[in-house]
């Protein structure tokens, strides 16, 4: 007799070992998803989580290896026979004036922040289109919406992701797949750990809601966007920034 088909939805989260990615992994698990994630190395927290449940799988993967990325998704799709959600979360920060930034560092950042999500999306769209259902969430940034000194390359990659969101929304909407960008403002994370007290005060002053964001603020929006309540939203960039860019 065949084993019963596992009906739990499947989420793929890139960079799920720490920070927002790890929070996303936990959140999807709490919502009854099976989760596939990858990163270059595994954090102690993720290792602990994997010991508690077999609903999460982690793969050691260098996101700049196109063939490995494709094989990662293919293996996940083969294992679960479905992919319901992809969150393109993995990213690296790159700060500095453009003329003072080494071309190799620019190339590496573009590979992780743009090429990787494009390839992951390409691979994940296949099982989504096959089942005529799915949601792709691209983690953008307010740096894609407003210019900011020192993060031009980072902002350019994120703006490109927003372009991917809009183009793909038209391309795969008729196949029942939604594509949405989420653009967090400054929120407490590894990437903002280096922000000094003065800058933190300046950001808070400029934010209508008067504070920095939290991981929970971003999670709440992704929770909504991946729920049936957001079933008529696609091709948009949702800023989660307390009004910083309004």
């Amino acid at each position, binding site marked *: 007799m065949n084993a019963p088909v596992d009906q739990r939805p499947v989420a793929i989260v890139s960079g799920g070992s720490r920070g927002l990615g790890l929070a996303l992994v936990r959140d999807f698990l709490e919502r009854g998803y099976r989760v596939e994630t990858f990163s270059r190395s595994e954090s102690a927290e993720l290792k602990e989580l994997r010991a508690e449940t077999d609903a999460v799988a982690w793969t050691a993967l260098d996101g700049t290896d196109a063939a490995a990325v494709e094989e990662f998704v293919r293996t996940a799709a083969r294992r679960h026979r479905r992919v319901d959600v992809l969150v393109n979360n993995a990213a690296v920060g790159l700060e500095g004036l453009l003329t003072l930034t080494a071309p190799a560092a620019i190339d590496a950042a573009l590979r992780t922040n743009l090429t990787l999500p494009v390839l992951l999306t390409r691979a994940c769209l296949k099982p989504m289109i*096959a089942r005529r259902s799915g949601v792709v969430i691209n983690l953008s940034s307010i740096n894609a919406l407003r210019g900011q000194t020192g993060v031009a390359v980072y902002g350019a990659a994120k703006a490109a992701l927003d372009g991917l969101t809009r183009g793909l929304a038209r391309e795969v909407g008729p196949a029942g797949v939604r594509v949405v960008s989420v653009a967090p403002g400054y929120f407490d994370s590894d990437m903002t750990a280096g922000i000094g007290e003065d800058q933190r005060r300046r950001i808070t002053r400029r934010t209508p809601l008067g504070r920095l964001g939290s991981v929970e603020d971003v999670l709440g929006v992704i929770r909504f966007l991946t729920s049936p309540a957001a079933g008529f939203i696609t091709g948009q960039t949702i800023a989660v920034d307390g009004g910083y860019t309004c």
Partner: protein
Amino acid sequence: MDRRETVMAALLEIVNEVAGPVEHLDPDQLLVDGLGLESLHLARLVAVLELELDTDPFSDDVPITGVRTVGDLLDAYDPVAQPRLGAVEPA
């Protein structure tokens, strides 16, 4: 079910959605101009078959632009017939 039958079954399912009930397809029927399939239908067909057969012949070997008929599609998934569709034959 062999590969060609699997491809035909998947194709029939999509053609049924697009053009209404069809029980049989001839190898020389045109996918786009004859059966009314659009590129997204073909993308879905390729995705379904990748899950079924664990292969996507269009990722490397066969140009999708070379697939115009039902027969072309069946050949693309048939390793013996593939060279006819433009795959590079070993020297």
